Structures are given as structure tokens and as C-alpha cells.
């Protein structure tokens, strides 16, 4: 039987240089639960190194955690890549790391903390995560799909790091599975401004960098159970699964 699940598919952790230190593996699922969110995706900039710890912390809490990343392409477009399991997100991460240059300066960009399930600091990521990789948006979307993942254009109504700000409009050939909106725009307006002649699935996520932001901008999905496969179907409108409100 299908029912509605509230999901927030864009949550950062303390691994993102702009993510608050309080965004730890233990605290994120607890906050999601308080906010009535049943399913989250962890999407740090260009890395998935904190995903395993968050998944372990969420075990037994009723919160489902999907492995993901927020990739910054060579055009400086942000997009979410969400996968079924850790192995796939790690394959994506290896590819991204091969195309990601530069070292982080924590004083300028912020700390990139790798944490374990006890909220202990395991180390600091040395690569500069918050920059564009040497792959184009088309190449990244293609790779996500080859790995069986879904590709969501991040915060398309933002004036920086969005497919719209960087490319002016969404190219006909670009096959995003959904477009993400911030809380600053209504879906009808977004459809008028950005959709063109195509039919898009719009979703809402918090893009939380601070604990208090988790769940502030979400939508509900009509699913049989809170899993990657079901979310993927909902984004594509398959088998009666769908995004309920955006």
C-alpha cells in the first residue's frame, strides 16, 4: 500500500567546508526525526565520506539515510547524485576525486571534518571540496545514470551555482531526474520561469548546513516504503509513485 513519506534529500554534514560542526552523524538523524522527516539523503560537496557514519547512526531510529553527494561541475553547476547503496556512491566519489584538484585551506574555506558514528573526528579531508571538478554537467549526469543513480539539479532558482545561473536555461539534452527548488519560490512560478516546454518533477529540500535547517523545506513522496528504489520511481512518476507536493 502506498502512503506519503516526508523526505529531505539534500542535507550537508560537517564534511562540507560550509557545514556547521554540529552537523554530525549522530545529530543529523535525531534532528530529522524531530522534524518529522522519515527519509534523508546526505549530500556533501564532492564527497561522500561521512555517509557511512550517518547511516550507522540512523540504524534503529526509523530514519532512512540515502547515500549521495552534491557535485560541482566544471560549469560550477551544483547537482545532487543519489544512489542505492554505499558501493555506488563510493564509485562516484572515486571518479569525482580523480577530477578534483586543489587542497583545502581551512582558515579560508572552513574545516572538512570526517567523523565516525560516535561523533569523533577521524580526520580532515585535504582536497578542496567546494570547487568545480574537471567534468561537465553532461558527463556527470551521464555517469550518475550509468551507476543507476538519480541526478537532481540543485536549487535552480538560486542566482549562483545553479544550472539556470550558469547556463541560462536547461539544455534540451540534459536529463535531470528532478529539479530542486528553494523555499524562496513557488512551484507554479518556477514552472513558468524554468521548465520551458519540458515536463519536470520539482522537489524541495532544505540544503541544510545547520541542524536547525533540516526539514525546513521538504516535500512528500507517495511510496510503498522509504527506499532508494521507491524514491527513484517517484521522481520518474513510475508505478503510481510520485512527488505529492512541491
Amino acid at each position, binding site marked *: 500500500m502506498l502512503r506519503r513519506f516526508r523526505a529531505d534529500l539534500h542535507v550537508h554534514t560537517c564534511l562540507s567546508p560550509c557545514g556547521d560542526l554540529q552537523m554530525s552523524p549522530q545529530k543529523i538523524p535525531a534532528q530529522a526525526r524531530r522534524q518529522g522527516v522519515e527519509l534523508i539523503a546526505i549530500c556533501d560537496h564532492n564527497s561522500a565520506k561521512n555517509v557511512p557514519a550517518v547511516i550507522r547512526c540512523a540504524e534503529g531510529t526509523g530514519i532512512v539515510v540515502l547515500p549521495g553527494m552534491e557535485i560541482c561541475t566544471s560549469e560550477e553547476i551544483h547537482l545532487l547524485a543519489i544512489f542505492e547503496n554505499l558501493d555506488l556512491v563510493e564509485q562516484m566519489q572515486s571518479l569525482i576525486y580523480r577530477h578534483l584538484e586543489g587542497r583545502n585551506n581551512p582558515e579560508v574555506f572552513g574545516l572538512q571534518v570526517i567523523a565516525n558514528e560516535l561523533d569523533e573526528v577521524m580526520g580532515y579531508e585535504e582536497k578542496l571540496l567546494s570547487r568545480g571538478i574537471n567534468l561537465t554537467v553532461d558527463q556527470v549526469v551521464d555517469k550518475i545514470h550509468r551507476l543507476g543513480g538519480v541526478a537532481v539539479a540543485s536549487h535552480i532558482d538560486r542566482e549562483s551555482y545553479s544550472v539556470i545561473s550558469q*547556463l*541560462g*536555461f536547461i539544455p534540451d539534452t540534459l536529463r535531470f531526474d528532478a529539479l530542486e527548488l528553494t523555499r524562496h519560490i513557488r512551484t507554479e512560478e518556477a514552472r513558468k520561469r524554468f521548465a520551458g516546454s519540458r515536463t519536470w518533477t520539482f522537489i524541495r529540500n532544505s540544503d541544510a548546513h545547520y541542524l536547525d535547517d533540516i526539514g525546513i523545506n521538504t516535500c512528500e513522496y507517495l511510496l510503498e516504503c522509504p527506499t532508494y528504489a521507491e524514491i527513484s520511481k517517484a521522481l520518474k512518476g513510475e508505478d503510481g509513485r510520485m512527488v505529492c507536493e512541491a
Partner: protein
Amino acid sequence: MLSASTVRKSVATLRDETMTLKDVVERLHLSVPTGQDHLDQIVTGGYASDLLSDVIANGKAGSVWVTMHTHDNIVAVAILKDLAGIIIVQGRQPAPETMLKASKEKVVIMVSDLPAFETIGKLSSLFDGGT
């Protein structure tokens, strides 16, 4: 009704000095990956931006546009804004799809081996009466 490019050409011929893409290519030592046959277009100014949304909002017809982008959307933006041509900086080459679309749509794409700062400086000096 006269098209924007016809008007530009007639206005330009009234002036003593007109600038064409050919002049820009020669003065800035640019390569021309696509659009060699269309360098007689009049250039009325320049615009530099790496946000295509900004070029759509603020680009002016007849300008050459300086950018780092190689994505094929640059061709659509050039057509939309009736730009004279596109200069890609830092020796970056247009993507294959960009080349195809540009040659089909007769959009001139030039490449500067210099970074954006130097390219824009040289371009700007052409319009200030310098060299």
C-alpha cells in the same frame, strides 16, 4: 522592418571607423574554431560574464562576449542576444556539440590563449581608441 543587424551595419558605415570581427581576431591574435566565413560582422562593444543568465539579461546586440564557458548553450545565448561573436578565454576549446551548433547557426566562436583579464583589457582598448 529592418533587422537589428542591418541597422547596426548601416549605423556603422556612417562612422569613420568600424570594427569587424576580423579586426578583433587580428588585434587580439585569436584563433577561430568556427565561423571563419563570417568575420565581416560589425562589433559595437564587448561584454564579459560567466553567468549565462546574466548575459541573457544584460548582453547587448553587436557585442563580442568574453567567457570561459564551452557548453553549447553559449551558442543559443549568442543567437538570442544577437551578439557579434563569442571569445572563449584561456585557450579552452569549444565542446564538439558547441562547434556543431555554432557552425550550423553561423555563430562565430573565437579562442584567446590569454586569461580573461588580459583578453578583456585588449578588447576594451580597441574601443577606447588605444591599441
